[in-house]
């Protein structure tokens, strides 16, 4: 039987995950429990769903989204700017949106991430719990580092900035080839098979690869085109 841990605090959850080999955190579950998840079916789970905050509030002039908030919570909140709601809508299925958490999408660091480019463009800072207790980590650093063993507690976003997003996927429920966000804080993208770009230079230098859906040449071309399109819209 699969080991499932439900601790009484974030601290204990963090410690549990460190002591149990291969254990992963479980919040929404739509990624961890899905077919083809990188998490093996017998992998121990540390359930943090009851421990992480879910509220969405304004704090110190920024939007703060609790790690347990789902995509749909974000869409339903009156505080959230439209560009971030649009980004959440990129996950086409409403039932998945009601289950998948924003922090879970960040932590998975998928190269077809729905949210990471938009959140990067929103100058997002993660509030995490780790070895040194609670601290803030810019999302850009988190992504650059390839994540960490910490628990994401909340996301703090510059909701006053302007962000445009453009996701290229064959259909609404397919993996994206390219997901680009352009905004006040710069140009960001994730490219299937290649990873993340943090500016236009990255996008140009990135090593694009062929995959089952698209060729490298197409992804390279369309990523550039999306940036141009978004810049034109932005004026």
């Amino acid at each position, binding site marked *: 039987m699969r080991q499932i841990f439900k601790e009484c605090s974030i601290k204990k959850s963090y410690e549990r995950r460190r002591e149990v080999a291969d254990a992963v955190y479980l919040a929404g579950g739509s990624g961890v429990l899905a*077919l083809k998840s990188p998490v093996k079916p017998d992998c121990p789970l540390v359930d943090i769903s009851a421990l992480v905050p879910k509220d969405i509030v304004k704090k110190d002039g920024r939007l703060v989204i609790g790690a347990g908030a789902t995509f749909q919570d974000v869409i339903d909140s009156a505080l959230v700017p439209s560009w971030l709601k649009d980004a959440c809508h990129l996950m086409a299925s409403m*039932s998945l949106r009601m289950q998948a958490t924003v922090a879970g999408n960040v932590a998975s660091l998928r190269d077809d991430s729905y949210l990471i480019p938009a959140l990067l463009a929103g100058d997002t800072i993660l509030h995490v719990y780790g070895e040194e207790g609670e601290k803030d980590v810019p999302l850009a650093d988190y992504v650059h580092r390839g994540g960490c063993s910490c628990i994401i507690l909340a996301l703090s976003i510059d909701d006053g900035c302007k962000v445009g997003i453009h996701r290229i996927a064959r259909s609404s429920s397919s993996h994206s080839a390219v997901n680009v966000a352009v905004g006040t804080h710069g140009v960001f993208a994730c490219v299937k098979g290649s990873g993340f770009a943090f500016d236009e230079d990255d996008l140009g230098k990135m090593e694009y690869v062929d995959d089952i859906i698209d060729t490298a040449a197409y992804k390279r071309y369309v990523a550039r085109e*999306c940036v141009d399109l978004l810049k034109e819209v932005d004026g």
Partner: protein
Amino acid sequence: MITFTLNGRKTTTALPQDMRLRDALYAMGCISVRDSDDAEGFTGSDIVIFDDRLRSSNLTLLYQAEGADIRTAESLKRGQELNDVQRAMIRAGVVQSAYNSPTVALILTWLLEKRPNATRDDVREVLSSVFIRDAGYEHFYLAVKLVQEMRRYGEYRTPVSPSFRENLEYIGKPMDKIDGRALVGGEKVFVEDRVEEGSYVLDILRSPFAMAYIKSIDTSEAEKLEGVEAVITYLNCPDVYYMQAGQGNPEPSPYDRRLLNRKVRHVGDRVAAVVAVDHETAHRAMELIKVEYEPLEPVFTVEQAMAEGAPLVHNGRVSYVAGAPDDLDEYNRTADERDGQVIYQFPLHGDIRHNIAAGAHGGIGDVEKAFKEADAVVEATYQTSQVQCTPLEPHVCYSRMENGRLVLHCSTQVPYHVRRIVAKVCGISENKVHVIKERVGGGYGSKQDILVEDLCGYATWLTGKPVYYRNTREEEFIANSTRHPMRLTMKMSGKKDGTITGIYMDVRANTGPYGNHCLTVPMNASSKTLPLFAVQNMYYDLNTYYTNIPPTGAYQGYGAPKGYFAIMSCMDELAHKLGVDSLQMALKNVVEEGYMLDILKGLGEGREGTVVPVGSCGVKEALRKGAEMIGWGRKEKSDDPDWAIGKGFAMIQQGSGLPGLDQSNAQCKLLPDGSFVLLSGGADIGTGLDTISAKIVCEIMKVDPSKVAVVSGDTDSCLFDTGAYASSGTYFSGNASLNAVKDLKRRMLEEAALQMGQKAEDLDLEAPGFVVSMKTGDRLSYEKLSHDALAGDGRGAIVGTRSFATANSAIPYGAHFAQVAVNRRTGEIKVQKFYALQDAGTPINPEMALCQMYGAVMKSIGHTLYEDMVLDKDGRCISADFTDYGVPMIGEAPDDFKAVLIDVNDQYGPYGAKSISEIATNGAAPAIANAIYDAVGARVRSWPITPEKILKALGKI
């Protein structure tokens, strides 16, 4: 112990806490919670309301339910009474194969609780979670509207469809589907619901190689494992050659396989089958099987298979049941016994030593002369890809022994072919096999093939154990039937006035490892397209090649969608070359009623075809009406300069069954109380065939539907029917029902004449269930008529029995129009408008017919733009789940989507009906391809038409 509230009641379960909630709920009796994607979170069949939110129960572990409030579709009914959403769904015609209909009813009920005035956008939002393959999405909006009307006005105010034939009461009118209540209510109607506690499972060890000989296989350790009942391999399986296509006997497909073969021919091919007490044991047993392979160089494409010296997929001994060539011994000189045998029932122009499984060639007139004398000639090659039917209910079978007989609970389109083939494989006579067709949770052609029943049935016959088998979703992709990929080279010539003078079609089909439908699918690419053209010079060359891709077979539309992609794209190219409007070219060259179809002579199913004139034909009306609806000839301007808008169309036809080959039988009984049971051999696969039979009884017997029950697809109780394929249901099985009911009426009148002391010719039937004398006005109730016939001194039960077979065709026609927007910079495509206009003769179930058109169009939009089975260099399918494969969801549905029934009365169909849904898969590919060309000038000649291909055609990458 986990405690939660389930459908309003506190529930405690001791099931394992790490069990998936879906499995737990099903085990707890909530059978409406289905699994269509093995926890991919894609199809939504497993959605429940969890603490007032939609949630995938497959992506939830049981422990997470602790303290939760969970609702499933079981909460919707009050006693026997459906809720208003369920009732409206039936009325709207969306309850078809219905594997996830209860879940959709639950979701829409939840939506209407939150938003009683839910808008179209609200419905679109909640249905974003659900994959619907059969009925499309359009009438779900209508169902919600009906609920709102009923709540507001106490009645439905929006018609669910037009009505046809004013003189008839039931035929051509919307009427609740007779099995709709069971389907949307979540009753135990599918195969999985029949599996008894303690049944064994069957699991299959599959080949990792695209082609290899099994040098050795050692199953001894696996067999020793406790809980393993049997391990079946090529060494101990019956030495019986057969094929898995459910076609009429003798089949136009070669017998080229046994249950398990010494040579594996695709990644996923059967290597060993394990019968065990549970999956865990079976999987452990499979790990203990030692197999040594001799890998062989595979071939994947037609081009590779055609190449001189190409590796041979089949190199066994060839034989013929009839029509063997004189040089057969010489031909077999190089046969390799490890390859087994290939047995042709009759010659199909196959040449397995060159990887050719079948071929056909023929035509009319002189195409070469036509090309020479033409003002313009277009020659182009079109390529279609391998796509999958993706029924929500995967292939499944439950077999058990009962009193020395093998009983199979099947999800099949062909119960009688299942009986014949399983009996053959097991080496028993057909009376030892009882096939029960359960409700079919989606077939679309793939359940025309006997892909799992052969092995599951044999496993039970061998072991005596009840055995359950169910494909995983991955197995659906790698070991199932798919559309044959095809390469079609077209040559078409014309005159400046728009007259098409010659058409040549070179069809090269890829049948994969086995020859299921290897002649007939490619033949359909010609036989369902060329007869639409009133052209004097037409010729076709068809060749089908064996390769090592995953298996192919039947898929709704058969070869026609591929043929239409090629021929209507080519016609559009010719029209542009000649400077002629393509719609005018279509109208000028399309057949009309009475046109003699000489081209059919060579286009039989391996035998000589029957030349017949065109019968009822609504194609011109469909073309004209569709053109008017879409504003043909008017160039639409986009507000955004990056997006260009274009229009395209395709004229289309299909068939209604296989005249000269198919036969259907039915029987109708008058019961002692004056009600009726109709026994139909036809297999209702969700399309409403049983409702057609019921309506026929109601119409002739003048009783309401509550007096009629229909039993179908049970090989013990019903008479033979070829099966539900080739668009045969309405035409063949419907006509058999009509004939049987007419026969019953005749017998009832004869008996009544004796009971009433009158002449039968003076009697008629009268609502609500009387025989009435037109001379005296005397009346005899059906109840008394039947009671007296069944009395001790009566003349016996009154039963009507008839068959239907014919040489006449009832061909459905139509035209599909598309308007697309294409982004010049990114290649993105959006289908803005799609209008499907079809002549289905008299649509007996018009609301269901519309839904089938929407569903079929969505399938074909899928294969046109999104869906693709991608193989790696070793032949492994790397897009073997829904997300990677890319089926269209509600987000891909056209913004403006209309299905229109053209009113035409056919002379041969029951009450003038023809087939409806297969034809609707034929139009989207050419209509969309032509619209894309119209929009941006990019001619893409291969499926799927992706943004990347458009940009390439535009020279941007």
